[in-house]
């Protein structure tokens, strides 16, 4: 029976060939390390968000009068609703951390360099969409925390002259965060961002498959030395087989991701639910202390510190542009950041600045 089924599938989808191509015969570089698994970790993180999100959306009511209560019902009445919500909330924060770490390691290893420029651009765009997922999802529980954090973040575009107010009104659907904003953010969260993200993810993975896994965490390979005029897939004929070598590393990191997630759910279940997150949104009452989510604290604090608002927002956009198109700006052939003291220093300064701004914004 099993053989029959296997044969049936083999005729139609070529299962053996798929396994051979992607698992048994695929070889990876011998100097591949655990940082090369972060993309897989992020992918699994997204899958957790999709599955838990589908479970939540079955009970969530995207209406200002019912949103808060429906989330509380998910937490208290829906069987295992608390587990799905905790996984979704904790998962969203871990996912952003994993994606940031993934980008930072790709940057450090110089793996954004040709022919992987578009893979990098796609990755950064996926990070931006992930942040948009975070921002739009944050409002949905309709708590004091989510309401006022969204008010703060949606105020940012008003720094733009002429079109600033229009942009903010477009986001909010009015002068203030209201039920209309909730509907817009819900639509964004469940029906606009997912297909956009899916398209980018397919392109990202297709590019990785086409170009091949980078085998040069440090140092320069043959591919990078020559001018890139023809397509050549990166292969590692002398490398280790993907299975079990890299697969085990990926599985270990994914399990590590789950361990961190369930450690937070077990030992600090209210870590992401401060007092304001348990109180329904009240547009007439500003809580004692309110700020955006942790991953938006650095830009938020930067905007607060720069007295000229246009300068602040322009600087933010320029930095974002440099970040997205960095592979096209960095013309140095050397991939090893340890051989590039200027870039290394800039990287360290940026990381320290981001940490300081985040800490400052949190205070």
């Amino acid at each position, binding site marked *: 029976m099993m053989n029959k089924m296997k044969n049936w599938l083999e005729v139609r989808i070529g299962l053996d060939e798929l396994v051979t191509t992607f698992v048994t015969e695929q070889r990876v570089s011998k100097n591949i390390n655990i940082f090369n698994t972060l993309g897989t970790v992020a992918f699994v993180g997204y899958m957790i968000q999709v599955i838990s999100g589908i479970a939540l959306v079955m009970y969530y009511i995207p209406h200002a009068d019912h949103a808060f209560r429906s989330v509380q019902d998910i937490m208290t009445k829906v069987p295992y609703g608390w587990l799905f919500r905790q996984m979704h909330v904790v998962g969203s924060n871990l996912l952003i951390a994993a994606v940031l770490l993934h980008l930072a390691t790709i940057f450090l290893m110089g793996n954004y360099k040709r022919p992987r420029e578009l893979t990098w651009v796609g990755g950064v765009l996926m990070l931006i969409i992930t942040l948009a997922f975070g921002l739009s999802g944050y409002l949905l529980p309709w708590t004091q925390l989510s309401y006022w954090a969204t008010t703060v973040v949606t105020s*940012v575009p008003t720094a733009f002259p002429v079109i*600033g107010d229009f942009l903010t009104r477009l986001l909010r659907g009015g002068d203030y965060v209201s039920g209309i904003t909730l509907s817009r953010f819900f639509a964004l969260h469940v029906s606009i961002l997912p297909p956009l993200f899916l398209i980018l993810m397919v392109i990202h993975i297709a590019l990785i498959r086409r170009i091949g896994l980078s085998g040069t965490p440090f140092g320069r390979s043959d591919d990078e030395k020559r001018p890139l005029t023809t397509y050549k897939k990166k292969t590692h004929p002398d490398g280790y087989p993907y299975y079990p070598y890299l697969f085990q590393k990926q599985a270990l990191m994914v399990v590590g991701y789950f361990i961190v997630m369930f450690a937070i759910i077990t030992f600090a279940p209210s870590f992401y639910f401060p007092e304001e997150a348990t109180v329904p949104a009240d547009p007439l009452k500003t809580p004692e202390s309110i700020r955006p989510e942790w991953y938006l604290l650095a830009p938020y604090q930067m905007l607060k510190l720069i007295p000229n608002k246009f300068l602040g927002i322009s600087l933010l956009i320029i930095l974002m542009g440099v970040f997205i198109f960095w592979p096209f*700006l960095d013309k140095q052939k050397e991939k090893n950041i340890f051989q590039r003291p200027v870039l290394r220093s800039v990287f360290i300064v940026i990381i320290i600045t981001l940490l300081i701004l985040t800490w400052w914004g949190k205070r």
Partner: protein
Amino acid sequence: MKRIVLVLLMLFITGSVVFGDYREEFEKGFLTKTWSGEQPAENFCIECHSSDRMKPELLTIAEEWKASWHAQHKIACHDCHGGDPKDASLAMSPHRGFVGKPTPAEVPDFCGKCHLGIVKQYWDSGHGKAFRASGKGPHCITCHGSHNTQKAHIDIINEQLCSKCHSYDRARTMKQALFLTEKKITELEADLDRLKSEGVFVDDETKNLFSVQAEFRTLFHSIDVDLIKNRTDDFSAKISVVDGSIKNYFKELQYRRNFSAFILLIFAGLGTTLYLFTKTPKE
């Protein structure tokens, strides 16, 4: 590429110079003010009672009120005294229902505007009857104070206060009758706070307990020991409903903790196995 960067830089610098004074909504709403604390509405009562023009004996009122249970629940000056706190000329206008300092005879009904059940119990009690008959006797302020009113607590019934007018024996008996129920209510309040801090939504239970507590507190004012003893069972039954619900929440939280710890252990085991596999030499 250099040209594009140069053009962008020029646009950026020109924009910054041209819009250098751009302020408006952004500064108003986001950057110049911190997003912390409620923006206080203009209140002329507080303003005058904190100014140098005020008589010294009336200067402390605003500060006393700020420390009160009323202030914590957004009950402001005009909620009791009337008047319009947003308009200096009408702040003390009798047309806006302003009553400055009520006479002792007016005090029970002054507070009773909001504390309806309590004022009824009070007028029917020995205290109320004595006060109505002679104009002397304890009223709200005698036990609770005026502006620095704190959350009502069973310890307001104490020997020092009661013995000002009569012996403490009867009050002690009453306090003993109230004690267990009051203690239970205080414990349940603490439990609800713990549940809230763990992210559990206990709005219904909080409302139920508040309702029982408010009803129970009206009973304090009857100063009728027999009535209190007779009604204690009613209150115990009501409290046990809330108590049951709270206990279930704690059980549920414990179950959740055990369940997620179990999953955590599975992943920890899986992680250890995988780690050992990765350390096994290959080929």
